[in-house]
Structure formats: C-alpha cells, structure tokens
C-alpha cells in the first residue's frame, strides 16, 4: 500500500499560469478530499468527492479553482490564472467508509506562484 500519492511534490508557476495537481487515492477508498495548508490559514478544506461524485465544494474559490474525479483512481485540482496568494501546500486525502473520521493524507504538493 503506497498510500495516497500526490504529484508533483513541488510546482512553481508564473503568475497567471495554470497549475494542475494530481492525486491517486488509496485503492478501495470511496472518499477523496482536497485541503490547502498555509502557515497563516492552517488547514483549509477545499472539496470532497464520494464514489467520484462531488459532495461538498464549499471551500473552493469558485472563479479559478476546479476539481474533478474522472475515475476512482485519480483526482485533479486545477487552478487557473494562478496568483501569489495561491501559494500553499495542497493536500489530498482519502478515506474508506462513511464516517470520514480516519482519513489518510498524501505528502502534499507545494505550489509556489512567482
């Protein structure tokens, strides 16, 4: 079990460019989450899928952020027209079952917008 795999581990983009982050959840896990972590804001929930269907995207900045889960083995987070304030560590996580209390996190993608 390789755990939740996130690629790339580090990404640098220029202001205004697009960034796509990839996540491979643990096989058999039905829920996939995206969080953003910064020193100032801490861990911010972005969005959540269950059985590939979007359940809650209440944390997503609506204009430039989008997330998809085209199949059960991967999810993507896309940020269009990146801004310096998008710089953060983006964490993907997955869980099995309904309670979502034991969630397995990937190592994250550190996005730096210059």
């Amino acid at each position, binding site marked *: 079990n390789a755990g939740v795999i996130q690629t790339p581990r580090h990404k640098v983009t220029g202001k205004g460019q697009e960034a796509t982050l990839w996540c491979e959840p643990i096989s058999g896990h039905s829920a996939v989450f995206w969080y953003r972590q910064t020193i100032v804001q801490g861990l911010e929930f972005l969005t959540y899928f269950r059985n590939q269907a979007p359940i809650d995207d209440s944390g997503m900045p609506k204009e430039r952020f989008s997330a998809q889960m085209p199949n059960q083995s991967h999810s993507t987070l896309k940020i269009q027209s990146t801004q310096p304030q998008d710089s953060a560590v983006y964490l993907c996580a997955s869980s099995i079952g309904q309670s979502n209390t034991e969630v397995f*996190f990937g190592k994250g993608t550190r996005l730096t917008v210059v």
Partner: protein
Amino acid sequence: TQTVSQSDAHVTVFEGDSVELRCNYSYGGSIYLSWYIQHHGRGLQFLLKYYSGNPVVQGVNGFEAEFSKSDSSFHLRKASVHWSDSAVYFCAVSQGTGSKLSFGKGAKLTVSP
C-alpha cells in the same frame, strides 16, 4: 459559528515529561472528533478518534484523548513523551456521517532531550 480551537500554538517539554494538548469545539449535534499528527515535511497521520462510548480513547504510540461534552473538549495526552513526538498536532471535527473534517490551527510540540 462552528469552530475548532487549539489554544496552545507552541508547547515545549522535555523528554519523559507528560503533555496535554488542548482542543475545544463549538459544534451542535452528533460529531466525530479526532487527532492527527504532522511531522515536518510530511502529510497528516491519524492518531485516534471518538464518536461515542468510553470518553477516553487510546491511540498509537501511547497517546490518548478524553472527550468532555460539558467542556466541549477533546484534549490529547501522553504520559511520557519521546523526542520523536516532536510534530504538529491537529484536532479535527466532523459533523455527522459523510461530512468533511474541519481542523484546528494546530499545536507544535517540541520535545527537548
């Protein structure tokens, strides 16, 4: 407003000391409470959880946490810390089955030799 509050952002203890990391929440209804640990440069790892039953729950590596409904708290404790326990600890709340996890700001624990 629903919140998860961790009052101590930084805690420093010596190896062998006991430690308590505090977590208070303001949520109504049924909730799931949990603690996660994040070592430097790594993702979060699950430590323990509570939903119902015995208010004291045991986790990995000697950690335990106690739920108090009257205090709206779920404090994490360890009787004797090791240097490898140095990490950031996050308290999390999930409101009901299938809901997202909401995290506190975290508490950085530093264990000195």
